[in-house]
């Protein structure tokens, strides 16, 4: 069976607009959560999010191209460019045919849609610009990246709420492993911080009025974020042949559905996805040293996820480092799995595991070895990155330290 490795990473996030800045923030345990600036939120019950800061769209795209790009697509394309440059890959004729783009997004061009609806219904505007349909479509990132780099293999977008990116990366990984593709650009992107969508989150009553404290006894809900992360995936054979740097092997993917409830997660469903990822990657559970948790900081998720981890790892649970980096970059929904996979893989490569920021007090309901507030130096052989979505759809990625 073909081995699949990660050779390039690109990130746009609330804690840095490239991989270098992102990793520095993670390693410092620095949170990007603060008062929302891009829209007036004084009437909302929550005020904070992890916004992307200092992102200059005009420096990345010309005026004409920008007409076709919602912020979620701008983030996605910029992250994909960084990942491709980082990997050093050259897309020749044959390789272009065998490279696909698989991206995740939960709400697509929501920001564009929200603004157009406001103009249509509130301001009684008579006409839409012709760019709206392609700006709003959730597959915009996959299409733009494929066009920009001439990549003509299987290319599509998955939308499974907060698991979208893990489903996308998992699909790309499987397509390469089974020989359908030789390489892929895969990841997720999201820009959910427009007023109409924030209002909808307010009604769910799961957003914290202050900050994101995953697994902490005083946790008070999730904090939204925005951004993108993209990866270049290719076979280990091809990567080694061209002397590419290899961050880690993507070794397994596990998916499951709770078949239970729209918003109340079930530990057996999450455990099933973790077990399935380990089995798919032929990873012995005792080699797992780190889990980048879904860790939304809602009461329901964190207790459920702790129970699920214990179901899978039993007595070894306390030996596994766990952190939710959402405490720093927020919950980026359809980009979450990708940004957290980047945190996981960079942690493995740098032998330093990113912390769970804003952690105040252990919770008996979350009896895990949490990396509280400061990173730990550790050289782990294997790691998991969990994503569990509203609707009970779970996707877990398993990574292994690369060795040939």
């Amino acid at each position: 069976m073909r081995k699949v490795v990660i050779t390039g990473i690109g990130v746009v996030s609330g804690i840095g607009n490239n991989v270098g800045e992102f990793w520095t923030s993670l390693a410092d345990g620095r949170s990007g959560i603060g008062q929302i600036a891009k829209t007036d939120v004084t009437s909302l019950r929550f005020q904070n999010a992890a916004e992307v800061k200092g992102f200059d769209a005009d420096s990345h795209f010309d005026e004409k191209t920008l007409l076709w790009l919602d912020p979620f697509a701008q983030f996605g394309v910029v992250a994909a460019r960084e990942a491709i440059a980082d990997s050093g890959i050259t897309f020749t004729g044959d390789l272009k045919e065998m490279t696909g783009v698989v991206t995740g997004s939960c709400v697509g061009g929501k920001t564009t849609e929200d603004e157009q609806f406001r103009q249509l219904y509130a301001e009684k505007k008579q006409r839409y610009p012709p760019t709206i349909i392609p700006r709003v479509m959730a597959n915009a990132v996959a299409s733009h990246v494929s066009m920009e780099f001439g990549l003509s293999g299987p290319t599509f977008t998955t939308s499974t709420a907060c698991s979208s990116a893990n489903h996308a990366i998992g699909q790309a990984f499987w397509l390469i492993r089974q020989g359908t593709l030789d390489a892929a650009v895969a990841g997720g992107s999201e820009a959910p911080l427009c007023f109409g969508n924030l209002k909808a989150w307010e009604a769910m009553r799961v957003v914290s009025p202050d900050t994101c404290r995953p697994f902490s006894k005083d946790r008070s809900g999730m904090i939204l974020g925005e951004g993108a992360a993209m990866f270049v995936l290719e076979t280990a054979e091809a990567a080694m042949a061209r002397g590419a740097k290899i961050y880690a092997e993507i070794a397994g993917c596990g998916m499951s559905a709770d078949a239970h409830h729209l918003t109340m997660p079930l530990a057996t469903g999450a455990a099933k996805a973790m077990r399935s990822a380990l089995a798919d990657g032929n990873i012995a559970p005792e080699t797992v040293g780190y889990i980048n948790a879904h860790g939304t900081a809602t009461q329901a998720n964190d207790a459920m996820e702790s129970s699920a981890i214990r179901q899978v790892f039993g007595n070894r649970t306390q030996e596994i480092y766990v952190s939710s980096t959402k405490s720093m970059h927020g919950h980026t929904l359809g980009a979450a799995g990708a940004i957290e996979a980047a945190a996981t893989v960079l942690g493995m490569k740098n032998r330093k595991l990113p912390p769970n920021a804003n952690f105040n007090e252990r919770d008996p309901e979350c009896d895990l070895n949490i990396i509280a507030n400061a990173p730990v130096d550790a050289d782990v052989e294997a790691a998991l990155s969990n994503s569990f979505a509203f609707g009970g759809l779970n996707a877990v990625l398993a990574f292994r330290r690369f060795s040939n």
Partner: protein
Amino acid sequence: MTESSVAERVMRVFSEFKKVPREDIKMDTTFAELGLDSLDGLNLIFELEEEFNVMIPDDKVESMKSVSEVVDGIQWLLDHPQEQSNVGPKTPAAQPTE
């Protein structure tokens, strides 16, 4: 606004939401007795916000598990309109600054 009229309106919202006769809803009826799960509870709170045009803060929601607790909570919010948001701007005149 009298307390009984608030109670009457709350019980009407409950009976319409659950599609049960009005007389089946009593002051001591609980969410659990009506078989409301967490999502049903959220939707019911939304109906109550619409009925009374109030914003019920998250911490108040947590203390509303029966008809009488909802009536008390709504009455309190109607009496304290400046408390309807956890974090939004407070009415400046309501509380003198020190």
